[in-house]
């Protein structure tokens, strides 16, 4: 890897050849990264790239299997997060690790409260100092009320202020702006710039490209547990950054036509129509249409609002405004049962948390959504269920000892096929697939993708969410690209190439639209 060129500033924190494995997974292999004083260092990568693991190693949550950490040039081992904190490495986690029921002042001085001569907590001084500290960083917050009564953004600011008060020399921020309003983002950036000028090193994890280019000096990209790029932020064009994250070489990103794409019937009124879906901080005016026999891809980076859009189709995402229509009829929010009745089916992204019923059998897992249709007077017909289960186990090639096998004992691919079967037995009109091939082996991946083709050919309207650009390009008739919860591009028909898609996901703003760059 190219050595850093940014200034001759001292390395504060270094990882050298760090590797970490978990049972069955190599989370990090031979990662080296150098964080220097007074720099904002972006750490980027898609899901499973190893960012969290790396951060946890830097902050003492995990210990690396091989390689070493250096803090201010000296080799160190952090046995636990406390040790890292004592060395001046502070973390602002997505999930704030403060005490929600205590006041902001108490949180700022947690574990190092000012004491009176009698060794009692000096509340008056603590308040005074807390107020002075927040004023200094222009954070407006009442230091006396419990932390959880303050807004998420304010809590985050207080978390940052706490790091400052601890005289941190490295501050690690994991998606710090995910719950902030744009005004709060400005305050945060003000604080970051000031910390930088004071010589603090900042590791900044975010998927928001605009923010990275605004605030970061250096960028390191992780992919599949490896460091694939490190260098000055300004020297890495957006498109190149996205291509690096997704592992797509631009020159090889050629267009491949969708299999069976030519036969797909795309006509008539849309089966699925999304009108101006809006949800504070999540979705902004997302509209799209899917016709019979059409596969519409939904592209974008993590946190772009793809899964939220998918959930909205099922009525499982709260909306501030906007409507979902299936065959012209609106879907009621808050009742997936009604959406399913109207012909919607959704394969969720997180199979384990949102999909499978782990301790129940394949049979029960397949039949759960179809129960109301399979029964008379609320009584289960095992005969009909068994026929259905047998049919879909054969059609989708589900490999198991039998329909009675517990689903948690199946491989990821077979679990995914069970999930598909759950939805296909409803003969849906609209199928939302959220990362249908994530975490399953190549063979199963191929089978799942083949099934998607078949379904579209049968006339289903498919909304395909995927982080794999190749999958989106291969499968989709049209790709809608989301960024920060809004539609930024629609790629249609023959124009679709991975190159275009990566460009669109990177969403290079034209110069006049980009006044924020500084």
């Amino acid at each position, binding site marked *: 890897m190219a050595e850093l060129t940014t200034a001759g500033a001292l390395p504060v924190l270094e990882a050298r050849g760090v590797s970490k494995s978990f049972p069955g997974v190599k989370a990090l292999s031979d990662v080296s990264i150098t964080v220097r004083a007074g720099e904002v260092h972006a750490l980027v990568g898609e899901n499973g790239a190893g960012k969290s693991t790396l951060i946890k190693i830097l902050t003492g949550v995990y210990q690396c299997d091989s390689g070493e950490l250096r803090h201010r040039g000296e080799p160190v081992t952090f046995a636990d997060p406390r040790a890292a904190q004592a060395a001046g490495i502070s973390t602002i986690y997505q999930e704030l690790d403060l005490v929600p029921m205590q006041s902001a002042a108490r949180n700022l001085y947690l574990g190092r409260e000012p004491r009176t001569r009698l060794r009692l907590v000096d509340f008056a001084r603590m308040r005074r100092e807390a107020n002075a500290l927040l004023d200094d960083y222009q954070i407006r917050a009442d230091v006396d009320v419990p932390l959880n009564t303050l807004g998420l953004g304010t809590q985050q600011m207080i978390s940052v202020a706490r790091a400052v008060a601890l005289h941190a020399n490295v501050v690690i921020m994991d998606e710090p702006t995910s719950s902030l309003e744009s005004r709060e983002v400005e305050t945060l950036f003000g604080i970051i710039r000031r910390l930088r000028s004071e010589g603090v090193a900042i590791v900044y994890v975010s998927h928001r490209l605009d923010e990275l280019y605004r605030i970061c000096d250096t960028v390191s990209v992780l992919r599949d547990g490896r460091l694939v790029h490190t260098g000055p932020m300004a020297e890495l064009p957006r498109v190149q950054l996205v291509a690096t994250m997704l592992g797509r070489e631009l020159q090889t990103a050629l267009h491949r036509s969708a299999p069976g794409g030519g036969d797909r019937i795309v006509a008539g009124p849309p089966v699925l129509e999304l009108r101006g879906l809006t949800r504070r901080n999540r979705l902004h005016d997302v509209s799209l249409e899917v016709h019979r026999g059409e596969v519409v891809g939904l592209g974008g980076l993590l946190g772009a609002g793809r899964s939220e859009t998918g959930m909205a189709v*099922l009525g*499982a995402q709260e909306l501030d405004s906007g409507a979902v229509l299936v065959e012209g009829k609106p879907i009621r929010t808050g009742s*997936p*049962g009604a*959406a*399913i*009745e109207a012909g919607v089916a*959704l394969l*969720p992204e997180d199979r384990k*948390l*949102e*999909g*499978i*019923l*782990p*301790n*129940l059998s394949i049979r*029960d897992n397949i*039949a*759960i*959504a179809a*129960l*109301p249709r399979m*029964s008379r007077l*609320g*009584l*289960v017909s095992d005969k009909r269920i068994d026929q259905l289960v047998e049919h879909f186990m054969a059609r989708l090639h589900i490999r198991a000892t039998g329909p009675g096998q517990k689903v948690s004992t199946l491989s990821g691919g077979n679990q995914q096929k069970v999930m598909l079967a*759950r939805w296909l037995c409803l003969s849906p009109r609209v199928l939302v697939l959220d990362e249908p091939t994530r975490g399953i082996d190549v063979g199963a991946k191929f089978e799942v993708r083949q099934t998607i083709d078949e379904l579209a050919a049968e006339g289903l309207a498919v909304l395909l969410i995927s982080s794999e650009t190749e999958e989106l390009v291969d499968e989709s008739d049209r790709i809608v690209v989301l960024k920060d919860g809004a539609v930024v591009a629609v790629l249609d028909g023959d124009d679709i190439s991975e190159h275009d898609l990566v460009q669109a996901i990177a969403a290079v703003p034209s110069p006049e639209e980009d006044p924020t760059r500084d």
Partner: protein
Amino acid sequence: MTSLSTAVAGTAARADRATVLRWTRDNGVYVALVLIVVYNVLFTPRFITWDNLDVQLVLCTRIVVVALGMAMVIGTAGIDLSVGAVMALSGALLVQFSGVPGVGAIALALVIGGLVGVLNGFLVGVVGIQPIVATLAFLFAGRSLAQLLLAGKNPSIHDKVILGISSGHVLGVNGLIIAALVAVGLVAFTVRRTNFGRQLLAVGDNARASYLSGVPVRRTLIGVYVLSGVLAAWAGVMDTASITSANALSSGLNYELFAITAVVVGGTPLTGGRVRVVGTVAAAILMQLLRSTLIFHSATDAVSQMVTAVVIVGAVYIQRVRARA
């Protein structure tokens, strides 16, 4: 080579151990029941008499009925602490309204039990309060209501229909046993044959996935607590019929704990997703026989409770192994 074969043998041994534990978890309660019956046949005089079996079974009928409702609640990964109080309230209602024909008073008690279930289910399913806290409220409120209704008295009951439940016999089988068997049949049917039964297991196994699959999660949770409340009220009717009077302080006291014990020892995991009807019944009978056996062989009640504790810990230990396997 040696280390490899040792490792393989170790894996095999572990797998065997898991199989043994799983078998023990599923069938341990039956084995224990058989063992304690055999022990009594051999060492307890006059154990195998119709009268004694009748007495032993009658003693556990109320626990069986309450435990069946509890098993369904636990199947949704919940818990219902209000059942003992509902029993007391049910008894109080029976005597207060025994002026109306007995059948009407029984129906009223069951309806009120169901309404308590609606309240519990609403707190758990709609408001989102943890079941242990939501149902704790009525554990206090229910018994207080019963005390208010009875105003410090323990009135006797004279209604023939109600008394008939405990004094009547069908083919020589005590009415209370019949009353419990009816409940067993209904619960077994509900869990195995109805959509509701399948859905409650799904909710217990993964509520979010169930919701996204169109299962009416709230309605299912409310339904489960309603059934638990109705069954507890039914147990209260049986209890009142059996002691021929209502007692706000002692009726159903600690029954929530006896019921949870029967459910856990019967092999239903507290984590939800599974309901063992027959196992729960067997466990209720087992706990009763265990207690009678110890008392017959001159152990004190304190000792018998210690033994109960050991059985519970053993049952939970086996479940813990299941959770890891």
